[in-house]
């Protein structure tokens, strides 16, 4: 889409666009190019010079079992976060949609967790499941279950998944609720007259009609799980135990800043860049389709 009426001149628009171009160039394009460049070098053991290795860092990464494990961890983690945040959100949205009065009040209450930073959410859940003083782990202990996410990788994964999904329920709820409200009541009533019960109406009419929203949320939640959950993992597990919660973004951080392995970290950044790019393409393809709805 283009404007029919425009203003003349080229100095003014260049001046107007300059701040954004400058900030993007210095803090986005230069670092992104740097990442690609660095990914082809390895520093010598004394950190005085670097040696060109071409795609060596990438080859090393993909042959490294820790890195491949991190890929699997990320896949499992983002799948679980997407599920655990979307299913309860859809359930609550369906309930709220059935209410004529009071839905607004519930919505106001349910958006609270969205405002809470992932890192703070991490601290709250860590407090509940703390092995020494946590209230939930204490009750689990009373029930005969010995909770210890510090040592048990599966429990650590479960905890970071729940803590990451929690705030996301609010976000997904808002989108599902808006989508459900937009489903024409006449269609639902026609089905009701034909004798379709609630769940049948839900699965054969409502769910297909809100599928654009569902698909959109799927992509957005995967992106969230990939990149924005760093705070949760850093506060709760620090990637452990035995790297069982080290997702890709966490590994970029721990290799680059803790391990000081800049070449490998840069190569990992480039791989993530490709992943984000692919997800963006998927999203835009979907957005284009959505316009025709």
């Amino acid at each position, binding site marked *: 889409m283009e404007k029919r009426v425009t203003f003349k001149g080229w100095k003014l*628009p260049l001046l107007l666009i300059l*701040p954004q171009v400058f900030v993007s160039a210095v803090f986005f394009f230069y670092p992104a190019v*740097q990442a690609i460049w660095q990914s082809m070098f390895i520093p010598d053991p004394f950190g005085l010079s670097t040696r060109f290795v071409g795609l060596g860092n990438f080859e090393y990464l993909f042959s490294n079992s820790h890195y491949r494990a991190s890929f699997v961890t990320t896949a499992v983690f983002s799948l679980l976060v997407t599920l655990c945040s979307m299913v309860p959100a859809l359930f609550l949205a369906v309930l709220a949609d059935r209410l*004529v009065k009071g839905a607004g009040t519930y919505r106001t209450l349910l958006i609270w967790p969205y405002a809470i930073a992932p890192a703070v959410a991490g601290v709250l859940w860590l407090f509940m499941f703390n092995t020494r003083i946590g209230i939930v782990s204490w009750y689990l202990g009373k029930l005969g279950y010995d909770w210890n996410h510090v040592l048990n990788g599966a429990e650590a994964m479960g905890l970071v998944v729940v803590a990451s999904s929690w705030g996301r329920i609010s976000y997904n709820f808002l989108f599902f609720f808006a989508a459900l409200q937009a489903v024409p009541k006449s269609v639902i009533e026609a089905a009701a007259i034909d004798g379709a019960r609630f769940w049948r109406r839900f699965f054969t009419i409502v769910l297909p009609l809100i599928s654009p929203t569902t698909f959109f949320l799927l992509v957005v939640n995967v992106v969230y799980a990939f990149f924005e959950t760093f705070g949760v993992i850093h506060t709760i597990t620090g990637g452990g135990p035995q790297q069982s919660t080290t997702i890709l973004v966490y590994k970029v951080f721990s290799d680059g800043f803790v391990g000081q392995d800049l070449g490998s970290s840069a190569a990992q950044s480039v791989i993530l860049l490709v992943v984000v790019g692919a997800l963006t393409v998927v999203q835009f393809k979907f957005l284009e389709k959505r316009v025709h709805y």
Partner: protein
Amino acid sequence: MALFSQDEPTGMVERRGAGLWLTHVLMICGVLVVFFPIWLAFVASTVTQADIVSPPLPLIPGGHFWDNYSRALFSGVNVPVGTMLVNSLIMAIGIAVGKIVISLLSAFAIVYFRFPGRNLFFWLIFLTLMLPVEVRIVPTYEVVASFGMLNSYSGLIFPLIASATATFLFRQFYLTVPDELAEAARVDGASPMRFFWDIILPMSRTNIAALFVILFIYGWNQYLWPLLVTTDPEMNTIVMGIKQMFPSGDDLADWPVIMATSILAMVPPIFVVVSMQKLFIRGLVDSEK
């Protein structure tokens, strides 16, 4: 004929009686489950360390609210939480205002002018969409360090402004502004900047406010970037500072103060979201579209 009337508030498929009560009960359970972690944090911020280390924690607040909160705000663990709150506020407002200002201007240039390189700039800016700072973290850190911007507000703010979400949003909005307005302005001999100040800016008010809410939360909740850039505790933001309050090693954390800090870290964004709920939901849905 109630079935066909548009103003009938309850259609035939809404539940009444027992079904309605069940819906309310389930909804309340959902809200309670979602709220439980926040409530527990609040309770923990009002009791003593002794109450916390002998589980289970009671579910009603204790009497040490002022004690814990003043200890957090004025002394903290490494640095007073009051300082971290100020840092977070400056960072969040800086990111929100900075991003809105540069995006308003660049979107105006892209939509209302034809100039050489316009398409190139357009695509360059749009490449920055969706690539979060986490992905280019090491090189960005090096750039900021080489500018001597570590432990400074500009180091906290600028790298997080470099993304085009807001530009994209304003561009979409400008495209819906009727052409007649620009035409009238041109006929009347108004300069482009005059048109921007007197027409475009007032028309964008709601969009600006909605975007401000979203960007404020985004800035306030940043974690990884402040963690890297602020090594000086005096520059820590509250969201990243909480983790720094945990002792390394096996010592017991000062839970009442940590939980009071967590509550303090949530209050501003929750206040913004709840008080500007309509704008927030609008901004959220628009900026993700």
